[in-house]
């Protein structure tokens, strides 16, 4: 771990204002989402506090707005700003968990394939190849659809959020597995790993202490770039109405709900969650891009 | 070539007007940890038809000198001081388009690795033809005729058929012959050959060097032959410049440098070549390594490794001084 937080990485960070701004933005987004219950002006899910009279209030600065609802309210009279903060929580949670899942799965299978080689390798990589032929959003949709069909409706609604995490996670493991397998093949043939084998260390231990540290750099880059993707995938699924349940609306759900009011002129219900989503994903992607460039010599 | 060195110009050379004249060339690389000086105060001449060998360890600045001459330094490298003149005309400060017309036409270039120097997607004939028609006022049919002629000249068998082959259909040695044809096909007066044989099999190296030498003689082309192989230099070059840490530390006629090396570094270098005349028990080697560009010591850059180092070497940097048959940048030859 130590060698990729060396001075070079820090140096390129301090030299890139865009990266610093996106780091700050990403931090603000994450903090705002995590601390939503403390920071949000309203609790959009507290039915008692909802006033239908306050429905469809435009943003505060438009004149007809109300200062207590800075970004306006939706059809239920929910504060859009608070809904965004709570929604970002769900989006980030799903995003992080999905990336964690695909990273774990991908790294484990990649190490296995690279280290064991032979038939295990051939089968795993063939599966990865076939899956990579399809866009991952399609895989996620299919997995989601199949699970939906396999489970009774009430059970599905309870675990919907895990289904989404699983679907997005499973749709992305091949990228990790391929990279890790490639690096593992290189590492496996190096002398120190050969030596570790000769002195009889268990394969598991060799992989953990010798191979794994060397593949972490690329994995970190892919994981960062994938976080942006996973957040988008969740938003897309939720927008299509097959993502998280409406009781726990994510940013994608909010956009879907707001979309119905686009034509009657209540643009803010859909546009503000959209802007929040873009800002969040853009800052994560910028960080990922920077990380990839900064670690580039290790990736190629 | 003349054996007696009379001219006082850097590196002493025959008394004709030089074809290429490099004066006090300084190449810098701005990096985040300050500016690296890759070439410092490099001066030499190449006369028409002459072969100048440039030797040194990797990173000594040999290839960089070649790149500066053809005007293709890798950014952010740049010429910070000094001048390069071709036939009396400065070429180091020309706009890109003017310099482009000189490349290929006046100065040819041969690169190190023939496997990567040719565009894999075009036939060798097409690459020759485009070079010829770019620089010479000939039509496509005539250019193709010349392309075949050049392939014959560099010893490609069945050139008339092979002209339509792709690079991957040739072996490494054959590809380097094609590269040589490409470098010479617009008949430049000077060729910069950057390690032309390093990437080749040992058995083929001699053939390619012989070919280069023959073509240079036949066409009267001057050549700057960059290599780290003293054997190649001894066989091919008229004069030789020895580079160390971005500077020329000794320059002179090949015989003189080989037989009576003046600079301790050159002497060490010569000691590391097995002589053909008699067996030696043990080859000499120079202790230590060439300093990195970021850590060149003050004074003479060779001082940490020099067996004959003294006070002056540690603080003052030596210029090229007359040292018997050659000129060497070493305080041992300080007349004072």
């Amino acid at each position, binding site marked *: 771990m130590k060698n990729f937080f060396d001075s070079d990485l820090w140096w390129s960070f301090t030299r890139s204002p865009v990266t610093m701004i996106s780091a700050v933005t990403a931090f603000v987004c994450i903090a705002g989402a995590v601390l939503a219950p403390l920071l949000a002006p309203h609790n959009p899910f507290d039915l008692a506090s909802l006033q239908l009279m306050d429905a469809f209030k435009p943003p505060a600065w438009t004149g007809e707005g109300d200062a207590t609802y800075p970004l306006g309210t939706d059809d239920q009279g929910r504060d859009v700003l608070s809904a965004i903060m709570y929604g970002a929580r769900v989006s980030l949670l799903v995003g992080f968990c999905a990336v964690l899942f695909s990273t774990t799965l991908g790294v484990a299978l990649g190490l296995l394939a690279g280290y064991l080689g032979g038939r295990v390798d051939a089968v795993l990589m*063939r599966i990865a190849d*076939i899956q990579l*032929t*399809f*866009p991952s*959003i*399609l895989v996620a*949709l*299919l997995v*989601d*659809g199949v699970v*939906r*069909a*396999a489970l009774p409706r009430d059970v599905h609604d309870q675990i919907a959020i895990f289904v989404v995490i699983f679907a997005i996670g499973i749709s992305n493991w091949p990228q990790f597995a391929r990279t890790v397998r490639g690096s593992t093949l290189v590492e496996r043939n190096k002398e120190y790993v050969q030596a570790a084998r000769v002195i009889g260390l268990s394969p598991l231990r060799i992989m953990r202490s010798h191979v794994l540290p060397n593949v972490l750099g690329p994995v970190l880059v892919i994981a960062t770039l994938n976080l942006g993707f996973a957040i*988008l995938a969740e*938003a*897309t699924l939720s*927008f*299509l*109405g*097959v993502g998280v349940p409406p009781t726990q609306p994510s940013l994608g759900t909010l*956009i879907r709900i707001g*979309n119905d009011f*686009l*034509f009657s002129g209540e643009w803010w219900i859909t*546009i503000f969650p*959209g802007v929040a*989503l*873009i800002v969040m*994903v853009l800052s994560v992607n910028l960080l990922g*891009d920077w990380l990839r460039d900064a670690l580039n010599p290790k990736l190629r | 070539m003349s054996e007696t060195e009379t001219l006082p110009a850097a590196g002493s050379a025959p008394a004709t007007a030089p074809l290429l004249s490099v004066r006090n060339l300084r190449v810098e690389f701005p990096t985040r940890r300050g500016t690296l000086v890759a070439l410092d105060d490099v001066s030499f001449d190449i006369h028409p038809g002459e072969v100048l060998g440039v030797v040194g360890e990797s990173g000594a600045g040999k290839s960089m000198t070649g790149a500066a001459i053809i005007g293709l330094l890798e950014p952010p490298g740049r010429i910070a001081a000094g001048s390069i003149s071709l036939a009396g005309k400065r070429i180091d400060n020309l706009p*890109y388009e003017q310099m*482009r*017309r000189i*490349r*290929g*036409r006046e100065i*040819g*270039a041969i*690169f190190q*690795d023939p496997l990567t120097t*040719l*565009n*894999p*997607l*075009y*036939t060798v004939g097409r690459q020759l033809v*485009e*070079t010829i028609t*770019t*620089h010479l006022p000939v039509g496509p049919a005539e250019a193709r005729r010349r392309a075949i002629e050049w392939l014959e000249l560099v010893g490609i068998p069945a050139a008339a058929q*092979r002209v339509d082959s*792709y690079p*991957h*259909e040739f*072996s490494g040695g*054959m590809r380097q012959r094609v590269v040589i044809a*490409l*470098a010479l096909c*617009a008949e430049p007066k000077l060729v910069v050959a950057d390690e032309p044989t390093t990437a080749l099999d040992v058995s083929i190296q001699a053939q390619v060097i012989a070919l280069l030498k023959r073509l240079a003689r036949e066409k009267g082309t001057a050549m700057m032959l960059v290599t780290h192989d003293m054997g190649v230099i001894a066989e091919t070059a008229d004069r030789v410049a020895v580079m160390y840490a971005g500077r020329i530390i000794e320059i002179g006629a090949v015989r003189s440098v080989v037989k009576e090396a003046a600079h301790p570094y050159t002497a060490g270098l010569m000691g590391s070549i097995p002589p053909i005349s008699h067996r030696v028990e043990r080859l000499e080697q120079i202790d230590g390594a060439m300093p990195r560009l970021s850590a060149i010591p003050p004074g003479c850059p060779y001082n940490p490794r020099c067996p004959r180092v003294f006070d002056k070497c540690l603080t003052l940097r030596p210029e090229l001084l007359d040292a018997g048959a050659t000129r060497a940048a070493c305080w041992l030859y300080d007349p004072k």
Partner: protein
Amino acid sequence: MFAFIVSRILQALPVMLTVSLISFAMFAYVGDPVAIMLGQDFTEAQRQALVQQLGLDQPFFVQFATFLGNAVQGEFGLSYRLSRPVAELIAERAPATLELALCAAFIALAVGVPMGVYTGLYRHSWLSRFFLTFSLIGVSLPTFLIGILLILTFSVWLGWLPSFGRGDVARLGWWSTGFLSWSGIKALILPAITLGLFQLTLIMRLVRSEMLEVLRTDYIKFARARGLPNRMVHFGHALKNTLVPVITIAGLQLGAIIAFAIVTETVFQWPGMGLLFIQSVGAADIPVMAAYLMLIAAVFVTINLIVDLLYYAVDPRLRIGRGGGH
């Protein structure tokens, strides 16, 4: 050449087989097709009859073989949701999706490649920086948001273009086209831009990075050292060498466009296969999902084959095995 095509088709077979196996497994084991098809009230005899009719009492491989045989004939059974043959449903909607995808692919390539070349060649110009910023926003913008923003601007505020549907379509045999009427073309503009924008930015970034990679190679340096004009170096030597990877990715992207059409079609209520698919996912309509999966797999395999053939045309190293010269 012929052997090359045959070997590629043979390589594609396992992919198709795996996908059909997944489709079949979905079809046979997910949910209870019998219960779904019979509805609320049924007798045991009715159930038995249906089980036999569907062949569900047969051994696994017989069922799979029947499934494959039917699939090859385009026979995927009835949609649970609409009680109509799946093949009919898909055939009805395929033209809408294909016309949309083709327009989007055209936009992505016609704009993305020149932008990529430009940003690769003139890395530090302000226009390149602008393009790059634009592309970064492009990859961070989810397709559905692009659609919503376009609808808001061009339909709601400006009122220039329709926000849903295909407009008037003309029928040419079984194919329905929107190209022949003004309203059909107008209806196509926003969805095609929405669908193409993401791929456009991807292609631009890909062409750019390939261009940068190729410009660093020895043969480009050598082309410069030979004094070739920039025009020849950039567009003759460099661009042609970037084509090989660009063809691959562009091919895959065309496939991705058809898949991403799901989202665009939802936003614009575009009556294509994607909308059908997403409605099926929502309703757990397995036959439609299985058929769609197979169809997409077939499309991808075909595209891959075409990509391989294009490779073959571009790269002489594949064309000629081993010449002499050794």
